[in-house]
């Protein structure tokens, strides 16, 4: 993997490395040449790794006190909150950690969208990322069911019922998922098992995600291919380690704010009422990070098509490297794409907002327009833009615009002219 051969200094190190080249791997990771113009939007990979580890560690501890049984789950969560030493802290970190995880992953995804990181030769990194994102949503949903509150129960009912939209076998699949004729104890125990399993699947995929990243190397804000190692790169350690570490500290401040000052603001009060199969809460809303997709589901008046639209909204991302026909990666050099990018960001935020509102009247209308635009962006705007857009000239190296004072070559040249005058 590394461009240079590594030889450990100590005799023991050499002996060990000849048998298991862990030190070669460590050397590759520390020396890994990284573009020197990476901005703070590139620090979210490290932040996400931190989020995953946090969820695994706090989850492991919670599992020591939680009881996965329909009659006891709700009480065992309250037992964690009131009786277990620091149980409140661990549970609040885990619950808010899920939200922080999604916050970071959305920034990470939209960074890719802006700088074209999903384009050749990084399609496989991108697709692995989408699979991780899907697994994250599954883990978040399963985890939300475990406290066995009203939102847990009815969220589980609504989401599992999505499968009943499948023609012919749908009802059978739902019964199979439930292990009964409604969401009940068998559902809870299997959800707990799967919730425990998924983080480790994600961990494995993260290794593949990083491995695939280390083959072509990082994309960068200018979006050009660079020589590695060269004047355009710096070693991962200490440069990126320090930068990632600083960003992580900033992120942890936000994280800690939620945990210590508003630990329940991202949840729903209804989930502090024990699950009751006879009463549906007046207003069922998923967690904030699923709202845009929920809005898409509700905006389609047909059950099967609604489910299809919601799934397509996620899966369409996997096809993005081929839907975006532009050869230029970074939006910095794509004046039109840059505008459509921000419209998409606004569109997703609007979908998230209407997803939290009742599905009627003006909200429904807005949700429908925003849903249509979401698909339009990926299926029409991006393919056409690659052919029609007049892109700006791209610099030949990272150093060039940096020395010119702007990542934009044209601007840099202009500036030089002005200076000459």
């Amino acid at each position, binding site marked *: 993997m590394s461009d240079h051969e590594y030889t450990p200094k100590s005799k023991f190190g050499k002996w060990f490395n000849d048998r298991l080249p862990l030190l070669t791997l460590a050397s590759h990771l520390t020396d890994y040449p990284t573009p020197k113009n990476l901005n703070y939007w590139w620090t979210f990979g490290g932040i996400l790794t931190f989020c995953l580890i946090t969820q695994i560690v706090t989850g492991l501890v919670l599992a020591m006190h939680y009881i996965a049984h329909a009659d006891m789950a709700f009480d065992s969560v309250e037992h964690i909150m009131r009786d277990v030493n620091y149980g409140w802290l661990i549970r609040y970190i885990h619950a808010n950690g899920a939200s922080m995880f999604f916050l970071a992953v959305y920034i990470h995804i939209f960074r890719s969208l802006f700088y074209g990181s999903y384009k050749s030769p990084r399609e496989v990194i991108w697709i692995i990322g989408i699979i991780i994102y899907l697994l994250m949503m599954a883990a978040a949903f399963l985890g939300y069911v475990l406290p066995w509150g009203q939102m847990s129960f009815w969220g589980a009912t609504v989401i599992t019922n999505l499968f009943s939209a499948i023609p012919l076998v749908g009802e059978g699949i739902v019964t199979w998922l439930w*292990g009964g*004729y409604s969401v*009940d104890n068998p559902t809870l125990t299997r959800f707990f098992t799967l919730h425990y399993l998924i983080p480790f699947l994600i961990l494995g995929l993260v290794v593949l995600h990083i491995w695939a990243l280390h083959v072509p190397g990082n994309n960068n804000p200018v979006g050009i291919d660079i020589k590695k190692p060269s004047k355009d790169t710096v070693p991962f350690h200490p440069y990126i380690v320090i930068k990632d570490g600083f960003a992580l500290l900033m992120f942890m401040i936000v994280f800690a704010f939620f945990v210590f000052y508003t630990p329940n603001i991202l949840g729903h009060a209804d989930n502090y009422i024990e699950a009751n199969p006879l009463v549906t809460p007046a207003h069922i809303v998923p967690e904030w990070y699923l709202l845009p997709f929920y809005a898409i589901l509700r905006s389609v008046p047909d059950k099967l098509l609604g489910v299809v639209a919601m799934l397509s909204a996620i899966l369409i991302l996997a096809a993005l490297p081929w839907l975006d026909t532009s050869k230029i990666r970074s939006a910095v050099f794509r004046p039109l794409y840059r505008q459509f990018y921000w419209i998409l960001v606004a569109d997703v935020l609007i979908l998230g907002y209407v997803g939290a509102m009742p599905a009627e009247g003006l909200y429904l209308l807005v949700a429908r327009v925003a849903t249509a635009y979401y698909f339009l962006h990926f299926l029409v705007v991006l393919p056409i833009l690659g052919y029609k857009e007049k892109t700006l000239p791209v610099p030949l190296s990272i150093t060039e615009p940096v020395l010119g004072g702007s990542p934009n070559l044209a601007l840099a040249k202009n500036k030089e002219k002005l200076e000459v005058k």
Partner: protein
Amino acid sequence: MSEKKTKRRDFLFTATYAVGAVGAAAVVWPMIDQMNPDASVKALASTEVDISSMNPGKTITVLWRGKPVFIRRRTQEEIAEAKAVNLNDLKHPEKDEDRAKNPEWLVMLGVCTHLGCVPLDQKGDYNGWFCPCHGSHYDISGRIRKGPAPTNMEIPEYKFVNNNTIKIG
């Protein structure tokens, strides 16, 4: 190498794959089927309900197989209203007579056919039920009239054991 020997080997490969596939399926099926409803869940398949104290216009909700069942003793006006509906106006055309054997008693699964929420009683645009989750409106016969639900609320198997008791399931 004679041609015959190669063929013999091909046969062995194919046979091995086939036996392997059957073996794998035989192991996978128990792993899948264990998630289906077990014997103890299936054993709780029927419920008897005492309806002697119900007056016209009253709805009760009982639990059957973990799901709510609505039992409504309908008023004469409601029965008339349910029967007067033109079948062409319905998304899922069903006569009221087919849904309520005894028109005074409507017995149905209180589960929205959209995504499984419990609809609210005497709400919505059609004087029947309204699902708060995604806005499906049902009429006084439990038929879908407006909203995303694809079908009418389901009628479970039930019978009148005597004048005061309904057995569901």
